[in-house]
């Protein structure tokens, strides 16, 4: 995949910094991305030595949250730090991992980069149903899509992921070194606009929307497995004693999976969008976690992973915690 100049700048700075980290003996591996065999695809990649650095790439299809891999990789490489590139949300996920004891700050060397927003490749393929996209060229603001007999230019922002469009924190919150400059906090008109639309629906419509959204789910659990928050030894969906979830592909079972997964992420989700990016069936399950993100923000004033010293909202008791729901129950 050809690259634009902004991404090229990031990539060359990245390579230079990673080379130095290897040369200085600081890291034993660097977690980044390598190119894939198909357009609009990407491979998370662990560079193990200086020779591997050339394989690193950077473009707008890097939608996998690398924090997801860190605890496991660090477990297997105890002697030195593992380096990793981290955008705003990925760095926030690293913060959550540190807060939850999955990682130690000293085990990872974070090369921070301010995110320009990543592309949702489904937004692109959606415009060419039944056609084969053979080549994608990314420039700073334009993406050119080519296949046999067609070539089209699309504005990059038009196909950017929903979560990136409403992201207020593109800058890494913790880092050891930076690539490029920080962009500063983005002011977003209403980052919960997608949720507001759903909240305004009548209960019947809301349920209809929910069932339609999950209808195509094949329960491959890619959304769960791509998420850095999901590290339970045995996920509730896999428990057999007791078995919480039936194995049939039915709305009830699928709904329980999605609702519970979302709740398990409440107060921890950084809206990185990895779950939605990996779903083969194009299910917008990120909206479920986004709703809980909104609730946590409104109730506790906390956005996950922004401050490493802030206690986790749902495992901490504060005297002024809102408890309206208990009062409401009493009234009834």
């Amino acid at each position: 995949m050809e690259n634009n100049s902004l991404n090229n700048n990031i990539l060359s700075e990245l390579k230079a910094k990673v080379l130095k980290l290897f040369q200085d003996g600081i890291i034993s591996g660097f977690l980044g991305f390598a190119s894939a065999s198909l357009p609009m695809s990407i491979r998370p990649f662990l560079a193990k030595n200086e020779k591997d650095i050339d394989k690193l790439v950077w473009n707008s299809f890097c939608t996998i949250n690398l924090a997801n891999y860190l605890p496991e990789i660090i477990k297997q490489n105890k002697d030195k730090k593992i380096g990793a590139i981290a955008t705003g949300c990925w760095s926030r996920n690293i913060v959550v991992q540190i807060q939850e004891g999955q990682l130690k700050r000293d085990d990872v060397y974070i090369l921070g980069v301010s995110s320009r927003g990543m592309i949702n490749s489904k937004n692109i393929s959606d415009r060419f149903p039944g056609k084969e996209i053979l080549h994608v060229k990314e420039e700073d603001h334009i993406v050119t899509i080519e296949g046999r007999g067609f070539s089209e230019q699309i504005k990059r922002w038009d196909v950017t992921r929903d979560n990136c469009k409403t992201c207020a924190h593109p800058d890494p919150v913790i880092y050891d070194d930076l690539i490029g400059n920080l962009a500063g906090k983005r002011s977003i008109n209403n980052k919960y606009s997608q949720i507001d639309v759903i909240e305004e629906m009548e209960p019947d419509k809301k349920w209809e929307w929910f069932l339609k959204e999950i209808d195509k789910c094949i329960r491959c659990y890619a959304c769960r497995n791509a998420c850095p928050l999901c590290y339970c030894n045995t996920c509730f969906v896999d428990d057999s004693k007791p078995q919480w979830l039936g194995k049939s592909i039915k709305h009830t079972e699928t709904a329980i999976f999605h609702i519970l997964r979302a709740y398990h992420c409440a107060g921890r989700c950084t809206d990185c969008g990895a779950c939605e990016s990996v779903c083969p069936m194009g299910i917008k399950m990120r909206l479920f976690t986004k709703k809980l993100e909104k609730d946590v923000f409104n109730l506790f004033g906390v956005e996950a992973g922004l401050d490493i010293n802030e206690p986790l909202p749902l495992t901490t008791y504060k005297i002024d915690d809102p408890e309206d729901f208990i009062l409401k129950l009493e009234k009834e």
Partner: protein
Amino acid sequence: MTLSKALKIAENEIKNLLNILNDSFQVFIPKLKEKTSYKFYEWDIYNNGDEFNIFIGVPKSSIKSFFFPQPETLFKFSIQKDTTALKEPEEENKRMLFGVRPCDARSIILNKLPYSEDSYYIKKTEQNIIIGLSCNERRNSCFCLWAGGSPMGTEGTDISLTLIDASFIVEAITERGGKIIETLGDKFPVASTSDIEKLNALRASYEKQRQSIPDPVKKIQDKNLLELYDKPLWNDVSLSCINCGICTFLCPTCYCFDIQDETSKGQGKRIRFWDSCMFPLFTQHATGHNPRGAKHQRVRNRFMHKLKYFPDRYNVFSCVGCGRCIKECPVNIDIREVLRDML
């Protein structure tokens, strides 16, 4: 089966054909799903008048759910105070899958190898009629020729359609396919000898292409199993794998299952449902021990099963080269590269 009679149906007459078939069968075609958040092709019931679109490659899901339903009811039962009664599951309709790509059609034959004594699977092969559709274009993830098939393959189909010069050449492949064609004989013209020659020449050119590459099955059979098993490659390939069910669930030739009883209020059914060797639970023992507890072991199993154990036993890969696992894998683990590295 030799070709007795082939028809020639103009491209824009395909709906007529579908409408006629729809009188006698429950017909399924790949439809563009517009109501989901994104558009993609999925198998769905054909209603008279529906558009039949030709698109490059295969629909999102394979046809395996028609043969190996997710889940499949093996039998039903009821538990009363002192009696337990077993019941057969309901009969399924006879179905016709129209527009099945050669790779997907071939998967029926490959899955039949391990399932040859599985009465449920065999019954489905008797019930489902397959109307194949040759490929005029390939996706960048297609590799049917490598996997032992062909974009014009007919294995697994009852009738095969090939679009040449804006007309479909409709060939009978099996006896029951031939019978269907006979009933259509008075409604559509017969293909001419030159049409058939064109078709055969095209098909032969693919055959030649396949024979020009050294048979990968032979090569893999010659490899020492334990050497392949111990290759360092598995650690590298598996590093980025998130151990999801995408590659196995969407794959037409993955056929592993688990069995459970689902009961409610004294009524129950025994179901078998898809399982995936990529899930840790797949090999979890009751003792807590897991012989494939590490990610690289599971990734290795998926590829070794498809590309070594299966061909050692059946002389063919358990893969038809449809490329779904490559396209849909969120981290682009590419079975073609794995095979190349194994060879």
